[in-house]
C-alpha cells in the first residue's frame, strides 16, 4: 500500500469519524429538554409531586 494511500485513508477516517465523534460530543453537551415532569424518564409526563 503506497504512502499516499495510507495518508489519504487516515485523513478520510479522521475527518469522517472525527466529525461523527464531534457531533456526538456536541449533542451530549446539549441534553434533551424535558417538556413535562417525567420522573421515571420514560418520555411520558407523570403527575407532579404534591408538595
Amino acid at each position, binding site marked *: 500500500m503506497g504512502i499516499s*494511500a*495510507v495518508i489519504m*485513508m487516515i485523513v*478520510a477516517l479522521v475527518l469522517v469519524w472525527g466529525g461523527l465523534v464531534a457531533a456526538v460530543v456536541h449533542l451530549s453537551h446539549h441534553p434533551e429538554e424535558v417538556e413535562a415532569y417525567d420522573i421515571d424518564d420514560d418520555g411520558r409526563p407523570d403527575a407532579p409531586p404534591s408538595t
Partner: protein
Amino acid sequence: MSERQQFTGRRAFIFAAIGSAVGLGNIWRFPYVAYEGGGGAFIVPYLVALMTAGIPLLFMYYAIGHRFRGSAPLSWRRLGGGAESIGWWQVGISFVIAVYYAVIIAWAVRYIGFSATEAWGEEPGAFLIGQFLQQAEGDAGFDVGLSLVPGVAIPLALIWVFALLVHWRGIQGGIARISMIFIPLLVAIFLVLVVRALTLPGAIDGLDALFTPDWSALTDADVWVAAYGQIFFSLSIGFGIMITYSAHLKRKTNLTGSGLTVAFSNSGFELLAGIGVFATLGFMAQASGVAVGDVADAGIGLAFVAFPTIISTMPGGAFFGVLFFTALVLAGITSLVSIVEVVLTAIEDKFGLSRNASVFGVGGAMAIVSLLLFPTTTGLNLLDVLDAFANNFGIVGAGLASVITLAWGLRRLGVLGDHLNEVSSFKVGLLWKLMVGLVTPLILGFMFVSQVISRIQDGYGEMPSGYVALYGWGSAIGLLVIAVILTLIPWRKGVVAAHDTGQGSTPQPGKEA
C-alpha cells in the same frame, strides 16, 4: 393524539433517521463511486458536498417537517398552497422506490440461504439471472408480464408482512424500535466483515486501489457531480422522509445537533463499507490474478455476482456470505420502512384515514403492486428502468423543486432558519441560506438537466426506446401528473390551518381532524 405516533426522544429519532439514511447505497454504491472518483482524492469533493449540500438540505427538510407539523404534502401545503404538489411528488417517488426496493431485500434474504450452501455454483451471474430470478431472455424480457417466480415472491411477501407490522406498531413502537436494534447490529456485523476482509491476502491491494489519490480527478466536473450525487442519494434527502420523521418530533428537539450526528453516522458507515468492500475485492483480484480495477463493481453486480464469487473462493466463505447478506437485509429494511412511512402519513393526513386503514389499505396496496410487478420473469428490467428514472428525475427533480420553491418562490428560508435556531444548539445563518438557496439549486439543476439531455440523446442502456418511454419517462411524468391531481383534491375542513406556530402542543401527522 396517538402516543405511538411520536418519537419519545431524539435518540429514537436519530436511530430512525440513521436507519433511513444507511441503506444499500452505502454498501454497494459509495465504494465504487469513491474508487472511480479519484480514490483518496475523492474525500475532498465528498466532504465539500456533505458540508455545502447534504447537511444544509438535511436541516432544511427537518425544519419544514418540524415547523409545519405534517406529512410532506401537508407541510408543503402549509408553506404555500401550490407547493403541496412537491409533497405529493415526493410521496409518488417514495411509492415507486418502495415497491422495487423491497424486492432487492427479498433477494438478499434468499442469498443468506444460498451463501450457506454456495448454491450459485461456478457461475453466480448466470445463477442470479437464470436459475434464481428466471428472467425471460431477449425481447421477451421487455414484455411486462405477471408470471410469478415463487422463489422471489415468497420472501418478498414476508418482507412486506414484516414492514407493515412495523408500520402498524407506529413511528416509535415500530420504526424507531427496529432501528435501535438493527443499526447497532448492522454496525457490529460490518465490523466483523471488515476485520475478516482485512485479514485476507490481497486486502491491502484493495485498500491501495481505493485510497491512492488521483488529484487530477478534482479538475473533472463529473467527479464533483458524482460526489454531490452520492451525498444526495445516500442521505435520503428529497424523498420527504425527513419531513415526515421530524413532524413526529417533540417541539423542543435539537434539530441541527441531531442532523449532524445523522449525517456523519451515514458517512462514517459508508467509509467503513468502502474499506470492507475494497479489502474483499483486493482478495478477489489477487486470487484471480487480475488488477483490483478489473473486479471493482457497484450495485446488483457487486452484491449478487462479485460477492458470491468471492464467497466461493474464500476460506470460511459461507459464514462471510451469511453475514454480508444479513447486513444488506438489515440496512435495507430500516430504509424501506422510512420510505413507506412517507406514503402512509401523507394519505392519513389528506384523507383522514386511521393508522390501521392506511397500513393495511395503502401499505397493503403497495405490497400487492410490488408482488405483481417485480418477482416475475420480466421484473428485473422494470426494476432497472424505474430505479434510474425515480432517482435521477424524481429525487433530483423534487430536490431541485424544493430548494427553488423555498428560496426563490416562497422565500421562506428565513422562517425555517429562525425555527432551527429556536430549537437547536448548532445555529445556522447566512452561510446556510447561501448553500440552500444558491449552491444546491445550481448543483441539482446541473444534475437534472444533464440527465435529461443524456437520456434523450442516449436512451437508457440497451433497452428498447419504446420500453424506456413507457416505463421510464412515463413513470417520471406520470408521478408529476398524479401529484397535481392529488393537490387539487380539497383538504378536510380545518386540517391545513390546524397547526400551532408557538411552543404549545400541536396536532400530529395523521391525527389532524
